[in-house]
């Protein structure tokens, strides 16, 4: 079955993440968003493309750099922005902030700020589906820094040993905070690590949204057909600092500029213009609609309320009737 790619939809998805996060950076400088803010700018093609391959009843687990995944998964910009503000109208009631986006409706399970911390849980999600005979897939996004953690290896082994329907989606942006992959790994071939657990693995250009989508669809189909896990390495790059506190001493401006030449949004826009999928007017309309949506999200967050301190300990435990 070949469904024509809705290219404008993909472009819109990436652009929406980019503009949302640019607004977040602005709001961070204005003191509206506090704590850590990890921007996804430069990596939008990964979440946008990968999410196309998932169904609504699949589960998604992500990292602390997850605004893009949350938007691409369908969490509304309003509740996402309110969460960034820490308002109780946010998708996690404001308790989590930027790093801990949760949403039951879209089966989005965080927002995990411990590197590799979500991987064992993802294996467990898939185990539950397997035991219950549900034809679902669990998609777990993580950065290449996670491969140095024991939890990565424990989860990869468990998933492969038990043939669990889970996708390990590695976003290789080359730096674990400020440490380059080659400075932390004896073997920088990430797919090789997956294959050492007898897990099928593929590397794909993470700056090409259609390539990301195609690779992820292939992997999802394989999981659904065979049951076992799949690994994808998306080769990508973070254009902005690790967090808003990062002075970026560990990489050269030239390197960043070279990667920016490969901006997934710029490249895809050119492609769509060349193919006639979009023109200047269409692009302007797209930008306008996104700006309006983000403007509304900011207004929603601004109008939101602070959770009363009296509710501080609510939901530490489930409220019992007895």
């Amino acid at each position: 079955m070949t469904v024509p790619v809705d290219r404008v939809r993909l472009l819109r998805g990436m652009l929406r993440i980019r503009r949302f996060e640019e607004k977040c950076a602005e709001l961070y400088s204005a003191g509206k968003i506090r704590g850590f803010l990890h921007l996804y700018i430069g990596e939008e093609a990964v979440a946008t493309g990968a999410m196309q391959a998932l169904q609504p009843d699949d589960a998604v687990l992500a990292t602390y750099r997850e605004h893009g995944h949350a938007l691409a998964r369908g969490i509304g910009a309003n509740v996402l922005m309110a969460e960034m503000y820490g308002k109780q109208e946010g998708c996690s009631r404001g308790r989590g902030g930027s790093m801990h986006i949760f949403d039951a409706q879209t089966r989005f399970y965080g927002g995990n700020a411990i590197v590799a911390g979500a991987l064992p849980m993802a294996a467990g999600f898939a185990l539950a589906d397997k035991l219950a005979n549900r034809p679902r897939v669990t998609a777990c996004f993580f950065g290449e820094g996670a491969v140095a953690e024991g939890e990565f290896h424990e989860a990869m082994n468990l998933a492969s040993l038990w043939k669990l329907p889970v996708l390990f989606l590695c976003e290789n942006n080359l730096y674990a905070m400020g440490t380059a992959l080659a400075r932390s790994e004896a073997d920088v071939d990430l797919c090789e690590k997956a294959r050492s657990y007898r897990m099928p693995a593929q590397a794909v250009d993470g700056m090409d949204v259609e390539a990301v989508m195609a690779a992820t669809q292939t992997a999802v189909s394989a999981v659904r057909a065979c049951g076992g896990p799949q690994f994808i390495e998306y080769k990508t790059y973070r254009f902005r600092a690790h967090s808003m506190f990062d002075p970026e001493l560990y990489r050269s401006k030239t390197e960043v500029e070279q990667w920016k030449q490969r901006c997934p949004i710029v490249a895809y826009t050119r492609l769509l213009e060349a193919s006639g999928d979009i023109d200047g007017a269409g692009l302007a309309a797209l930008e306008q609609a996104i700006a309006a949506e983000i403007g509304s999200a900011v207004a929603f967050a601004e109008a939101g309320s602070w959770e009363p301190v009296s509710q501080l300990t609510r939901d530490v435990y489930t409220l019992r009737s007895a």
Partner: protein
Amino acid sequence: MSQNVVTVRTTYRDALRAAHREALQRDPRVFLMGEDVGRYGGSYAVSKGLLAEFGEERIRDTPLSESGFVGAGIGAALNGMLPIVEVMTCNFSLLALDQIVNNAATLRHMSGGQFSVPLVIRMATGAGRQLAAQHSHSFEGWYAHIPGIRIVTPATLEDARGMLWTALQDPDPVIMFENAMLYNLEGELAENAGAVDIDRAAVRRAGDALTLLTYGGSLGKTMAAAEQLAAEGVHAEVIDLRSLRPLDMPAIMASLKKTHRMVIVDEGWKSGSLAAEIMARVMEDAFFDLDAPVARVCGVEVPVPYPKHLEDAAIPQVAGIVETALRVAGRHV
């Protein structure tokens, strides 16, 4: 126990196994996983025979990946199952602390109440088997420090039989600490024994001279101490905490209002211990009810050593409990 209750002779281990069997039979969402729970039959033989009865899907041997399989238990619980995860000893559970503390304990609050983690983690705790400093510690007091999880310590056959089902019904993560010296505990248990509450402390022996407060592996020693004290005319009340988090403070305070004296027996190290927490709360809320300072009999602050005489000296024993109790009761020792 009333006279018409039919009882059977059993052990703590067998009572735990019966609890597992009942849970697996009653709810298809329940499964057990951990190191050597299947073919080996469980390192303390709790799950012996369950693999043959329930099959490999539900009795799952795991690799030696504590973080991996505890995390998988959390994920499975989030995704609709009721997993029981066995960790061989609480010392090994330190390898899974990230999953327990950063995920299981936080997810409900951090997600604004959207998700619960109905997971039960069981682990052996405590010294007494000459297993030295990496298999003998008591970390239940540490775990009781963490909001978001519940800590239970079955010390009797009834609780070994009944706490598991209740813990599985609880929407939040529950860690069950089984003192390794209790597995061979033998006695009579009602044939129809079943689920018990996991919230309340229990008065195991009534008395009015002083309160001996304890839990888990120290309960038997404390009961023996109370017997000796009675022979000397000191009638101690023995309270079994059963749940270390939350603590049943009303039960503790009710006993204290009666006895006005208290000794806490806790196998964990003294500094920053659960015993210390209880003392602090008693001081905050019941200072003027006290006729004497609260005392503690705790683990000595040393990695538990291998030789029997040193191991015995490192954890609470009957003689030390009696001696401390007599002092607190105002009796010349």
